[in-house]
């Protein structure tokens, strides 16, 4: 099997990209990686143009479009919305794990969606800003490489439809289909899923951090809320210091383990990253894969910072 196609702006960065690719391969991890210094534009990575199902990473572009509507006055952040467990989306965290109806303001749905990856909050927002409108907006902004097509719960529905609530079977199907290219679980098919490329996602983060997209109030709020993510087991795992800040969004579904985010240092370096992985691991948890995303992020940040 040929190795991944590395991209880098100079020989040293190329070596780092190759080292990261080798670490992924050693763990049986496939996928794309891209890290780019937001201000110098220098970057390193591999297989950066592959379209990958985003899972919960799709909540970032959704948040940007919703926040833009709020900033332009089309949507009220204080507007209360009733979320009823009887009809809301499946998920392990936030409102998706609630057992009783709750009324939450639109602005706080955004916080829940990005801080704890709340599927019910995300799909309630999709109720206010449908996927087609998010997709249209992204294209109007020139965000090539990202496509939004469906609510989050579609992933659960397709997986449960194919495997009948049997996680092991769904995982087995996902792994098998990943090799054959014929997808039993529709939401793993890049032709039907919410998808993005590493380049497309890093472009988006770079523009958000440079106020180069949407309304500046929207980008500022997105940066603030992404800084509240509670998960630190992936991108942030090797970058936990008071002098560093990681703002990220994970995405996990069956054999997919992703995270995109921005690492900022006290002295002003800002590096946007996307790590999009797939593996044949027949397990729900794969701590070594989570960790290799963290070690890759650290290697890339230290190589790219000035």
């Amino acid at each position, binding site marked *: 099997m040929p190795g991944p196609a590395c991209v880098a702006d100079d020989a040293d960065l190329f070596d780092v990209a190759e080292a990261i690719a080798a670490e992924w391969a*050693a*763990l*049986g991890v496939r996928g794309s990686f891209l890290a780019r210094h937001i201000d110098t534009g220098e970057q390193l990575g591999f297989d950066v143009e592959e379209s990958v199902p985003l*899972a*919960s990473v799709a909540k970032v572009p959704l948040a940007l479009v919703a926040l833009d509507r709020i900033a332009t006055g089309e949507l009220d952040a204080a507007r209360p919305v009733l979320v009823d467990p009887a009809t809301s*989306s*499946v*998920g*392990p*965290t936030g409102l*998706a*794990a609630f057992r009783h109806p709750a009324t939450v303001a639109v602005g706080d749905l955004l916080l829940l969606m990005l801080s*704890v*990856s709340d*599927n019910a909050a995300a799909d309630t927002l999709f109720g206010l800003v449908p996927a087609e409108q998010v997709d249209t907006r992204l294209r109007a902004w020139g965000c090539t490489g990202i496509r939004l097509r469906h609510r*989050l*719960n579609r*992933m*659960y529905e397709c*997986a*449960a439809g194919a*495997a009948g*609530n*049997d*996680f*092991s079977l*769904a995982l087995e199907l996902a792994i098998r289909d990943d090799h054959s290219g014929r997808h039993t679980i529709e939401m793993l098919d890049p032709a039907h899923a919410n998808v993005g490329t590493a380049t497309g996602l890093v472009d988006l983060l770079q523009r958000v951090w440079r106020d180069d997209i949407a309304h500046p109030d929207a980008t500022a709020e997105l940066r603030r809320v992404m800084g509240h*993510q*509670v*998960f630190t087991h992936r991108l942030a795992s090797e970058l936990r210091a008071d002098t560093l800040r990681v703002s990220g969004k*994970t*995405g*996990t*579904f*069956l054999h997919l383990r992703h995270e995109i985010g921005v690492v900022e240092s006290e002295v002003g370096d800002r590096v946007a990253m996307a790590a999009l992985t797939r593996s*044949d*691991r*027949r*397990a*729900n*948890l*794969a*701590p*070594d894969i989570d960790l290799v995303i963290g070690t890759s992020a650290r290697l890339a940040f230290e190589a790219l910072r000035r």
Partner: protein
Amino acid sequence: MPFWYDSRMDLLAHLEAYVAAVDEASFSRAAERLGIAQPLLSRRIKTLETHFEGQLFDRSRRQVATTELGVLLLPYARDVLDRAQRLRHVARSARRSAACGVGVPADCGPAALARVIRAGVEHGTALGMRELPPAEREAGLADSSLAYALVRVPPEHAPLRVPLGLASAPSETPDGARPASPEDRPRTRRRTVHLEDLRPRRVGGAGHRRTAAVPILTTVEDHVGYAQDRLRRAVARAGLPEATVRSAGPMATALAETLAGQATLLCAEPFARQHGARWAALGDTSLHRGYDLRAAHRGRGPAKVPQWLCALLATAVGAAPDEPTAAVARAVGEDGRSRLAAHG
């Protein structure tokens, strides 16, 4: 049809009648010697004369006389009967001396196998122990090159269950005992090894270095489809990298690596003890070995397996005497539905 052969005729019985009649010079004495009725003997001789198209006896006188043809054929008839007799002897002695092949796993203790062989002698059956990989044991039963074999079956349905565990380097003290604790507390807890406990530790402080997980070596006895699948999944679910499990290759090398503390070997307890390794059973009993002692097909159905053989082979293979506790893998505090959803 060749003149000398008629499939409806038992040539040997007919020749016997002819030779006996010549020897005894009397049909009645010949019939007596062969233990058959005289009319039957006469009929056989008559049939033989029809086939040879000539009289063997001259019945015109009071005393039975052998004709010229009867004298001429006599040595040839005796020769055929001698050869048939030898054929029966060879077949019988071959049946007595041939050992019954018994397919056993490669890691049985020699002393235990010796007990099986001795018991075979006592029961009048010569047993030959054949160390073979699982697939070849099954193939041996199918083509009857083995009379009996221990066949691998999933442990939960198995009549014989062999606890599998990990062999590791022995402790430093020469007799394998751990140094006594200062307070002299007894060490009575039986250790079980759980795969998730094998995850490399994240060491804090000055020694900030993550060691890789110690490899688990597997022998050919565990290269059975379902067993490999189960182990692979269990290793993944325990949070261990896939590369943790690898094939042991030559046994001497695998044992050396194990005793040197660079690997652990998946094996049964007697095998580990025999080589001076430490051993702890795997907590997940669905990963243990299961065996069924089966016999090769004879005629219509499988032959019966003698009970004494089953008991001795159970010991040789290291089967646990007690009833197993049902191993029901419980997912730890999972919410099945939400695991199928996208999450953080």
